[in-house]
């Protein structure tokens, strides 16, 4: 496997992400596998942020700790991060030369200024330089820049391609051509760069979401912003709520009125939505919330990653009602599962949650075109209901009543109090029992349809690594690393957290020598759920909760011999 990691690092506000985007955009035409991840502090200027790009001849699923190339915009970046280079790794440094052997000075801004009279295209200089280090011709990069800037202005496009070529040349001239062992371009790796956050937005938009409301909160805001930016294109009304309570209650109102809707938040904001979630359970509304996790408790580490809100998502809200919880492991799963969440919520008229996190939100990947573009979900409505309509008629089985929306012949009455079949508040004990039974009956049907865990690795692997959500990538890469080094390992990944499918799980658990739950939290929350559901009584755990994501190498190493 040929696999190069390029780490672009500097202060917040220096354009680290823009530089990264330029580079990955240019690389996206090279026919190589690409994946990027981000690390940044909770500040708008200063600090130390970095943007990692993996360039590989095989599909990548996670970040790596060690870089092949550090592109440093500041001395601090160089000082803090050069220790994370692989032995012999290079440092393309924005500044003067030093005596360090691995350091390649590049004054991109100066070069850009000289060439174009402005520093605006400095990123293209840097991207060109990296292309040269990778031993790639600059054509693909220039083509990308042409496309990116060509629509806006000819001069801009020309300036950028010129700068890219100059950066490319300058490194070549300095004798660093192909100093990184890069994968060979291949015609079969094509697609677009999508972040986890954007994939959720696209999935929601194509599923037919027409109303989105949220209160900004990292790391969920990127999804909300994606929806705002595409609101005209998809006809979505995007409204910033005054707080998270408003957001979830607005979604309740919108779904009642028949519009697929969702909200996005992080753990702290979701905490404020717990009552509204319970309302959706009681009223049987298809409410969907995206929870982008970050380390808690409280404000915690706003720009870091975690998998700490599984148990909270599972129990949030008073009283008992069914819910579905999804946790995508990859960018593509994000697209798929937000759609599945919306569909499940509508089929079963009950809330569905999607757990993502900073790691997956910011992860970008070269992915093929998403398959189901433009097929909206089925709202499962009864648009012909008449005057005799009752919202909560109890069906013979399954608990799902036919759902009408206001505006037609049927009057639609929904209540947060316990209610009768017509939806009117009732203190009747019989009504209570039959409505509560009806609501909970949906869970069995949801379970029958739930996604089984994904198995990756040799069927008879001795070591089984269990994981959920965004740990997919690191665990999958750990499995590959372990098997490459002669071990016998496999991954079992939960993309659906609730309800679980015990039979499908148990099938995969028997006969293992070692089972280990890998989770981005301190209390092994998914392992607890496996115990509670009788799926797995005991397992090792491998946990991380410093705010950084796992890497495959880290897991492989910590698994030990």
């Amino acid at each position, binding site marked *: 496997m040929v696999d190069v990691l390029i780490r672009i690092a500097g202060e917040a506000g220096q354009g680290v992400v823009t530089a990264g985007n330029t580079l990955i955009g240019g690389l996206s035409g090279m026919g190589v596998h690409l994946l990027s991840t981000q690390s940044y502090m909770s500040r708008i200027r200063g600090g130390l942020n970095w943007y990692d790009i993996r360039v590989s001849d095989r599909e990548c699923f996670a970040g790596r700790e060690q870089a092949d190339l550090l592109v440093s915009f500041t001395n601090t970046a160089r000082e803090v991060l050069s220790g994370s280079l692989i032995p012999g790794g290079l440092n393309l440094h924005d500044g003067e030369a030093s005596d360090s052997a691995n350091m390649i000075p590049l004054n991109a801004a100066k070069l850009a200024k000289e060439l174009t009279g402005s520093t605006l295209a400095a990123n293209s200089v840097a991207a060109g330089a990296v292309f040269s280090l990778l031993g790639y011709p600059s054509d693909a990069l220039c083509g990308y820049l042409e496309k990116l800037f060509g629509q806006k202005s000819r001069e801009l496009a020309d300036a950028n391609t010129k700068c890219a070529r100059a950066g490319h040349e300058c490194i070549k001239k300095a004798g660093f051509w192909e100093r990184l062992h890069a994968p060979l371009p291949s015609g079969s790796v094509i697609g677009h760069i999508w972040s986890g956050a954007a994939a959720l937005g696209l999935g929601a938009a194509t599923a037919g979401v027409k109303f989105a409301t949220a209160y900004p909160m990292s790391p969920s805001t990127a999804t909300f912003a994606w929806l705002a930016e595409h609101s005209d294109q998809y006809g979505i009304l995007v409204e910033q709520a005054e707080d998270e309570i408003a957001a979830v209650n607005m979604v309740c109102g919108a779904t009642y*009125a028949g519009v697929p809707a969702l909200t996005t938040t992080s753990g702290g904001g979701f905490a404020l939505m717990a009552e509204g979630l319970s309302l959706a359970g009681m009223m049987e509304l298809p409410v969907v919330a995206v929870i982008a996790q970050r380390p808690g408790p409280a404000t915690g580490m706003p720009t870091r990653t975690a998998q700490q809100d599984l148990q909270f998502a599972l129990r949030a809200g008073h009283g008992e009602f069914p819910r579905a919880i999804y946790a995508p492991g990859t960018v593509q799963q994000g697209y798929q599962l937000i759609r599945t969440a919306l569909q499940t919520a509508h089929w079963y008229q009950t809330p569905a949650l999607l757990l993502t996190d900073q790691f997956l939100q910011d992860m970008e990947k070269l992915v093929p075109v998403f398959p189901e573009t433009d097929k909206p979900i089925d709202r499962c409505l009864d648009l012909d209901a008449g005057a005799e309509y009752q919202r909560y008629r109890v069906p013979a089985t399954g608990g799902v009543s036919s759902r009408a929306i206001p505006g037609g012949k049927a009057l639609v009455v929904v209540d947060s109090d316990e209610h009768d079949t017509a939806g009117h508040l009732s*203190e009747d004990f019989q009504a209570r029992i039959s409505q509560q039974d009806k609501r909970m009956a949906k869970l069995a049907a949801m379970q029958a349809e739930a996604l089984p865990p994904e198995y990756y690795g040799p069927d008879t692997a001795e070591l089984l690594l269990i994981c959920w959500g965004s740990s997919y990538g690191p665990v999958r890469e750990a499995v590959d690393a372990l098997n490459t080094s002669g071990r016998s390992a496999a991954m079992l990944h939960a993309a659906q957290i609730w309800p679980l499918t015990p039979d499908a799980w148990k099938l995969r658990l028997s006969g293992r020598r070692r089972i280990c739950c890998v989770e981005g939290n301190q209390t092994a929350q998914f392992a607890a759920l496996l115990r509670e559901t009788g799926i797995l009584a005991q397992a090792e755990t491998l946990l991380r909760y410093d705010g950084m994501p796992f890497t495959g190498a880290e897991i492989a190493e910590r698994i030990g011999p």
Partner: protein
Amino acid sequence: MSQLLDLKKADTIPAWCPGCGNFPILKAFSGAFAESGLNPEKTVLVSGIGQAAKLPHYLEPPCNIFNGLHGRALPAATGIKCANHELEVIVTSGDGDMYGEGGNHFIHAIRRNIGLKVFVHNNQVYGLTKGQASPTSDEGFVTRIQTHGVMSTPFNPLALAIVEGCSMVARTCTGDPVHLKATMLEALRQKEGFVLVDILQPCVSFNQINTYKWYKERMRPIPPEHDPYDRMKALALAFQWGDSIPTGIIYRSRRPSFESRQPVLRQGSLVTRIKQKTLEQHQ
């Protein structure tokens, strides 16, 4: 499980105390609604939790109802209006519901000037939870919780709504059924934006201060020469409380509504813009 008792016989409707100010409100509302010509099928009544919030269940003719969480009527109503702005969305709420638990939504829904008709049954007390002070309780009002009497300045919903440029702000009182119904009708006829009607409503069980008599003696219909578009004059009226309480339409603004400003709503309501695959229920 052991035999469940059947309480239906005891569950008389409405669940209000005899003599409660909610009865005249229900009556006036029904009358105003009928006169307004609104179509019940195209109308949604949204409420939170409290005695006032039960009104939608009792309305004749029946409408669509969303009886949500305590304090959260406005965001739910906002979501409904966003989803389908062809619907008439009417909110009925208590003073605790709207100005206490729901205070933040009150601020921001008016800022949006979204097209909701909001009727607040302001009995200056928490009725359903048995008589604690509400944000509008008068200073000195003694309850089991406020044992030394209320010490906070009463919340002035009218002044806040005026400050925020609410489309229409009115006050009325159950003491004068004609005025009550007329004001409600005027509210229902308002074409655009947020409409706030604060209705002074006696709670015969828990508020022995602000009684029918107390309100009736103080109600002063606003003279016709009042210009409701004059913000400062409107504020001066909104501040009047005590021996004389102005009732009627205090303020109007010509601010466009939320719905009218949203580009995505220009091609019709959101709910009509969904490509529906099938109507089959998923099995």
